[in-house]
């Protein structure tokens, strides 16, 4: 990388994340001054965004080529008090906790206490949600049966398609006008609601155009005083870029990147969309600009690379907004889950990899930044060269890119009723979630603790951690004669809690639609403009609500152990087992050893355990898939944990797989940590017994020591391993390439390993920033190739 990029990268790496109250201040004054009075909610939201973008500080960093920061400076991170309000204590914790800290100034703490907390209390979405939930929902939530994403983050999970590279925001406004003209006044209140929504979108479009013009104005000023003539010319070109985009379609590679970046800032300033918005198929979107400009001689590979590197740094400058409440004590993550997609297939179905795909892979390798995350879609049409190139980067131990199976992603979408072309233009985002880019709202609604449900089943509806009856009475398990009785009880309990979760989600969807529409995001996702409906209210072409199952490996091993030892081998009876669990195996060490080491386990290509996994999967799938949400779409499942398997483990006592109380559960669809003893092919065979095509994404983590990947020959074999998994419809696989020894050293001497990035779940993170539980778990995950 050149000197400019080196400096910008260094600035990004060394900038301390901080809380910026700029957005909160502007938003509060907007509402407090009565500017929203008398307007509809969507219009007020659009005006609020306009107010923020018109008044927020413009930040242009020395030497940069793409401009715009979410806060007043790199890594200055806003709050969203209309969604959730940080308490004074939250700020203290954020400022002082060891990991994932955010600097909070003393003055800011006071303003938060004296102005923002009093103003927003009673108005925030989080309060509205908790006030609207049933007692059974609250009890299950508190027990850790499930989590709820939308209590702190906006339902923004979506990714952009190619539309902004063909159309400017003025074109979107033309579409809005046509949509307004089509409104049928005879429909009365419906037409009025659509008119308000479309008007709000129009205002939101103006807001971003104006925001770009403000950057142009500042760049003009900087150009006048710039003494370096080269830089002056750059500043003038950048000012011209900001006048061209987002108002008009971009004409150059450079403008395309700048355009996307303004759009990105618009989305993440309007709301704090979790699993963040990103450009999606970047190698596809930029390729026409690249080809044309290379041919015309207005762009060189070197310049294209430099612009991409600048673009990467912009993502890294935006840490994920920190959470509120008790969770502030957890270390969490700075990553905001932007997952750039490379490779895959074209809309015509042909292999999509091009020269830019490889250039972007090189940029990823060279930049080695936490954000954005990246992935490569491999289809059967993808050349081996693409897979091999990705593996060479993975081999360096940086945890990126992850690998996805295009030939699973497409049928997953077709099964959900999506158009083939929309599916080919889609991909995966966040951790592993399948989506039709630019056309779908696919919301993660929360994690679901499958193993906790079994614990409650084993106690006849009572949560043994609190002694409270939070489930239904499904029978005393010691009276069951057959394993199938236990499984039936588990299934009933599962249905009970899934019903609670879905009932809650339906209410929460309505709260967001009513109180916090997203007119800016609605500009970008088909067919919100054509439908005159908000993204948060079913305006998108496809509307999917996901519930993410966690602990499939753990719950499988628990059920397998009970079937094997209690009902078949009769090694011990149910009462003995329950007594052992209640005492956390104290005095039952032999039994714990048997449960751990002398029991069939998921992840070993052993049908005894894997068949039970299939039964759990079928139950979870059938209880959720296809149930309607309130946005014209459906509930679906996927299987990914992020880091929630650690929290979910903490709320569960000792379990029949031999796991002691409080330990993490298995993550994603990976086997229980250390349970897979038959090598990677056996893990993949077990994992492939899941019907991936009926999910919206599964996450499989595999750890390799570097020795396994030393030679090109071994790397090729790893490529074959992945191809074989994908032949069996596997959705995704990712690799940690480190030795346990290295990780232990990193634990002991974190200062020496601050640059060590590892795969956590659907993303990578700095190892030293992880909590000690998670660090230990990553160390424990089965190492392949030992002995």
């Amino acid at each position, binding site marked *: 990388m050149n000197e400019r990029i080196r400096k910008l990268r260094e600035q990004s790496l060394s900038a301390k994340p901080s809380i910026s109250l700029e957005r909160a201040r502007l938003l509060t004054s907007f509402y407090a001054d009565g500017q929203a009075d008398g307007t509809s909610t969507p219009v007020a939201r659009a005006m609020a965004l306009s107010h923020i973008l018109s008044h927020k500080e413009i930040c242009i960093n020395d030497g940069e080529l793409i401009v715009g920061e979410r806060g007043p400076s790199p890594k200055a991170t806003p709050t969203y008090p209309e969604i959730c309000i940080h308490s004074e204590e939250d700020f203290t914790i954020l400022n002082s906790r060891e990991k994932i800290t955010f600097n909070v100034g003393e003055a800011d703490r006071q303003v938060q206490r004296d102005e923002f907390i009093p103003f927003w209390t009673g108005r925030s979405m989080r309060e509205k949600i908790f006030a609207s939930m049933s007692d059974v929902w609250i009890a299950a939530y508190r027990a850790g049966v499930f989590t709820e994403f939308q209590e702190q983050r906006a339902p923004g999970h979506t990714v952009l398609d190619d539309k902004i590279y063909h159309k400017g925001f003025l074109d979107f406004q033309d579409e809005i006008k046509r949509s307004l003209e089509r409104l049928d006044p005879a429909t009365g209140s419906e037409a009025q609601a659509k008119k308000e929504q479309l008007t709000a979108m129009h205002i939101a479009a103006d807001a971003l155009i104006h925001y770009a013009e403000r950057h142009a104005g500042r760049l003009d000023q900087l150009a006048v005083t710039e003494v370096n003539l080269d830089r002056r010319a750059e500043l003038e070109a950048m000012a011209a870029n900001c006048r061209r985009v987002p108002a008009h379609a971009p004409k150059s590679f450079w403008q395309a990147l700048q355009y996307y970046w303004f759009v990105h800032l618009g989305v993440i300033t309007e709301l704090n969309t979790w699993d963040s918005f990103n450009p999606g198929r970047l190698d596809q979107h930029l390729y026409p600009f690249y080809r044309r400009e290379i041919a015309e001689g207005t762009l060189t590979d070197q310049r294209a690379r430099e612009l991409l590197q600048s673009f990467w740094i912009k993502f890294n400058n935006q840490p994920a907004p920190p959470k509120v409440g008790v969770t502030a004590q957890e270390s969490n993550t700075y990553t905001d889950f932007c997952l750039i997609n490379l490779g895959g297939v074209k809309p015509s179905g042909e292999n999509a990899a091009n020269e830019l795909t490889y250039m972007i892979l090189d940029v990823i390798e060279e930049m080695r930044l936490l954000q954005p995350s990246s992935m490569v879609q491999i289809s059967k049409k993808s050349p081996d060269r693409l897979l091999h190139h990705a593996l060479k980067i993975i081999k360096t131990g940086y945890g990126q890119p992850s690998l996805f199976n295009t030939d699973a992603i497409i049928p997953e979408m077709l099964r959900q009723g999506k158009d083939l072309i929309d599916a080919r233009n889609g991909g995966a985002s966040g951790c592993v979630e399948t989506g039709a880019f630019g056309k779908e709202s696919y919301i993660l609604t929360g994690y679901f603790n499958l193993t906790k449900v079994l614990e409650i089943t084993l106690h006849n509806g009572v949560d043994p951690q609190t002694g409270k009856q939070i489930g239904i009475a499904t029978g005393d398990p010691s009276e069951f004669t057959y394993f199938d009785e236990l499984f039936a009880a588990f299934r009933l309990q599962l249905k009970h809690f899934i019903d609670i979760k879905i009932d809650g989600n339906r209410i929460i969807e309505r709260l967001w639609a009513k109180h916090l529409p997203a007119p800016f995001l609605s500009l970008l996702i088909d067919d919100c403009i054509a439908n005159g409906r908000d993204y948060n209210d079913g305006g998108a072409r496809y509307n999917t609500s996901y519930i993410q199952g966690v602990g499939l490996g753990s719950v499988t091993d628990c059920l397998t152990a009970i079937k094997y030892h209690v009902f078949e081998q009769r090694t011990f009876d149910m009462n003995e087992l329950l007594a052992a669990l209640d005492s956390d195996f104290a005095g039952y060490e032999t039994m714990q050893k048997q449960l751990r*080491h*002398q029991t069939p386990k998921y992840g070993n*290509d052993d049908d005894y355990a894997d068949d039970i996994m299939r039964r759990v999967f079928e139950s979870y799938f059938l209880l959720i898939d296809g149930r309607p949400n309130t946005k014209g779409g459906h509930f679906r499942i996927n299987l990914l944990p992020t880091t929630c398997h650690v929290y979910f483990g903490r709320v569960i006592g000792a379990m029949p797989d031999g796991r002691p109380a409080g330990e993490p559960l298995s993550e994603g669809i990976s086997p229980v940590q250390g349970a897979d003893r*038959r*090598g*990677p*092919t*056996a893990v993949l*065979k077990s994992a492939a017994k899941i019907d991936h095509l009926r999910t919206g994404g599964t996450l499989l983590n595999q750890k390799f020591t570097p020795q*396994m990947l030393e*030679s090109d*020959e*071994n790397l*090729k*074999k790893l490529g*074959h*391993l992945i*191809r*074989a998994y994908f*032949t*069996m419809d596997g959705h995704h696989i990712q690799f940690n390439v480190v030795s346990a020894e290295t990780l232990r050293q990193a634990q002991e001497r974190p200062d020496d390993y601050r640059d060590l990035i590892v795969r956590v779940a659907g993303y990578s993170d700095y190892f030293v920033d992880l909590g000690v539980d998670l660090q230990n778990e990553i160390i424990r995950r089965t190492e*392949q190739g030992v*002995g």
Partner: protein
Amino acid sequence: MTRRGIIFNIKRYAIHDGPGIRTTVFLKGCPLDCWWCHNPEGRNTDPECFGQDTGRDCLIGREVSVEAVFHEVCRDSVFYDQSGGGVTFSGGEPMMQIGFLEDVLTACRREGMHTALDTCGYAPTEDFARIAGLVDLFLYDIKLMDSDLHRKYTGVPNHLILENLHYLSGNGNRILARLPLIPEVTDTDENIAAVAEFMAQNKALREISLLPFNTLGRDKFRRFHLPDRMGTPRELSPERIERLTESFHQRGIAVGTGG
């Protein structure tokens, strides 16, 4: 009546035992007694208890049917198909259980599976004749060209081994020679030159894998309370391996390492 055999391990995702992704079946029993043996638990034909290891790990070796082994090996077919891999029989010395080996090879071949045999070559030539048509690739150890030294370090002379090598190469079998680089035993200039010269005389022997000595065997000697005759050998420097490689290259023989 199906034949049964004694195996002591089945390793999946074996990536050092022939082309592609393979499953390696370790058959128990070996006629040699190499000082540097990596798998001392594979020497005796019968299942036996080793060391003080806990519970079930103690007993090494189990009796299995041809069908059971074949079934296990088939589990990874999807990976073989993708990678051009297959099954490898190793040990121990698989030729010690020739009847069982022949049956399993026949079953695998019927399935169209690529088969490899990792052998020390010390078995009756008529036994090799029985399986020569069932094996796609022989991974054939050439340790020491001096028969006296061969006897000293492995317990047997090398005449039969070299005779069988001639037989198989004359029979048109594909052979990948493998030479464990044991410091000061097999990696001497004299031995390397002799191996290279021997191979140069035989047009069917065009490739050799040099397997650098590792300490895996020593860990097992300790674990199983077996005498360690190797002591602490000097390390093989990359320069030395480079020089040994050159001896083969000069005679037109391709060299791989670690495979």
